[in-house]
């Protein structure tokens, strides 16, 4: 194993081990050893997050662990980012994400965002309690391919359907892939409102989004 590869693995391990300080230290080491910053993120930190996501799916890690892993990853990325060579990063799929109007439960949405970003998606976070029109406007504004919505309340989930109605009225429905998630949401609900995708957790959401755009 080359020293760069060894470093990637250590970066990944630091993320999986929830060790933020070590992730920062190793990222600085990568910079000083002139290891390619993009590779250090992609093969190191993001790889670690992918492994953390797998542990989450296997129910070894839960939400608190996943958030701490993502903090470690982001701390490492913050060190490496200024050293990214322009143009090295591959083109990233763009999406908007948010919790639908009326609802402020955003833990699930945040996890999906974390996992998608670590998998190479460019995600604009619209936050929580987001009106349907804002999803549409922002998605058009940034040229998003994906519109991702969540709701934890049965009282608010229907509003997600309004986003799709607005897109249809504007004649732009086909420009986007739309996916939904959240506690009371199911595949049946996604089908009913005419969404393209549904996933039950953040790790699955990454595969779902990848397949929607494949």
């Amino acid at each position, binding site marked *: 194993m080359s020293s760069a590869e060894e470093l990637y693995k250590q970066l990944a391990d630091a993320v999986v081990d929830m060790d933020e300080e070590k992730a920062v230290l190793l990222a600085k080491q990568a910079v000083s050893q002139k290891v390619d910053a993009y590779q250090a993120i992609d093969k190191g930190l993001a790889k670690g997050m992918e492994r953390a996501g797998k542990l989450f799916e296997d*129910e070894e890690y*839960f939400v*608190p*662990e996943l958030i701490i892993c993502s903090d470690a990853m982001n701390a490492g990325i913050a060190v490496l980012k200024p050293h990214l060579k322009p143009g090295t990063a591959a083109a990233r799929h763009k999406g908007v994400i948010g919790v639908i109007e009326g609802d402020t439960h955003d833990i699930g949405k945040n996890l999906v965002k974390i996992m998608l970003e670590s998998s190479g998606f460019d995600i604009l976070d619209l936050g929580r*309690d987001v009106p349907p029109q804002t999803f549409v406007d922002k998605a058009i504004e940034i040229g998003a391919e994906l519109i991702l919505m969540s709701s934890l*309340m049965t*009282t608010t989930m*229907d509003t997600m359907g309004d986003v799709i109605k607005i897109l249809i009225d504007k004649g732009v429905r086909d420009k986007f892939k739309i996916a939904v998630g959240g506690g*009371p949401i199911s595949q049946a609900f996604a089908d009913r409102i005419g969404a393209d995708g549904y996933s039950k957790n953040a790790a699955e959401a990454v595969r779902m989004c990848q397949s929607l755009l494949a």
Partner: protein
Amino acid sequence: MNAAIVEVMQKTGNELPRAHHSGELMAALAYDVHRATGFENFGIPFCMTVEAEALGSEVDYGSLKCEPKIAKEVFGSVKDVRCLSSGIIQNTKRAGAVFASVYELSKKHPDIPVTGSIAGPLSTTASLIDPMTFLKELRREKDEAHRVLNYVTDRLIEYAKIIADSGADIIGIADPTATGEILGPKLFEEYALTYINKLAGAIHELGIPVIVHICGELRMVKAHLPRLRGDALSVDAFVNLRELKKETGVPVTMGNLSTYMLEFGTPEKIYRAARGLLKNDIDILAPACGLSTSTPLEHITGFTQAVQKT
């Protein structure tokens, strides 16, 4: 559980969000809901934000069809939480409305049980502190997290006691943040079990039974459930209550008709599902989680009638 559906409120004019602020209206609405739906109790209040608002967070009262929610958590970290003095929840106007409506309903209708619902310790705390930070700190700042949860639980106990004194027959503790799906088994045991039990234990001392509602999948926390001090356990739709009862010895099971089915199913399907639950020896039949306020009344009566025909 909030069973105030739009159809009922529009018929009687006793509407949310106004009823969140007035004891009289809250009681009137609870009575309307009971009459129209056939649910055999009164459930008070119609939201889960009275506690967190009293402890400092900003609440958006929602609308006719949308329940109140936390607009902004007051603290950024468990380390920032300043403990407010004893009595802080019960001295708020909204808590006063809850007490007044419980009192009125229990006096006017002594034969119908009044359930006073309170937000559980973890959910209340996650409404005071940014939830992403709070969840991390359950691992990273254990001492401070326990300090804050003890404080919140103490305030909830005081509040629950006055609801009980006002005439509630049952206290329901709903703690959606305390689900094993979010916390995992270890943190569920360390925090959810500890503080729900502390709260339930204090309510038991008043001689009042406690219903505990746990959201989500229970598989990973099943081992801890025999130690949960609720008299009845209410769960989500996908939990097999019959098996759960056998495996954990939970004394009274409550649930768990899918709220999705209640909203979008046909009355026949709902009727059949309710009969299925009855056959499974579930002790208290109820919706599995928060009812959508857009649920058609006909669907709910289909559900309650299936039970009452036995």
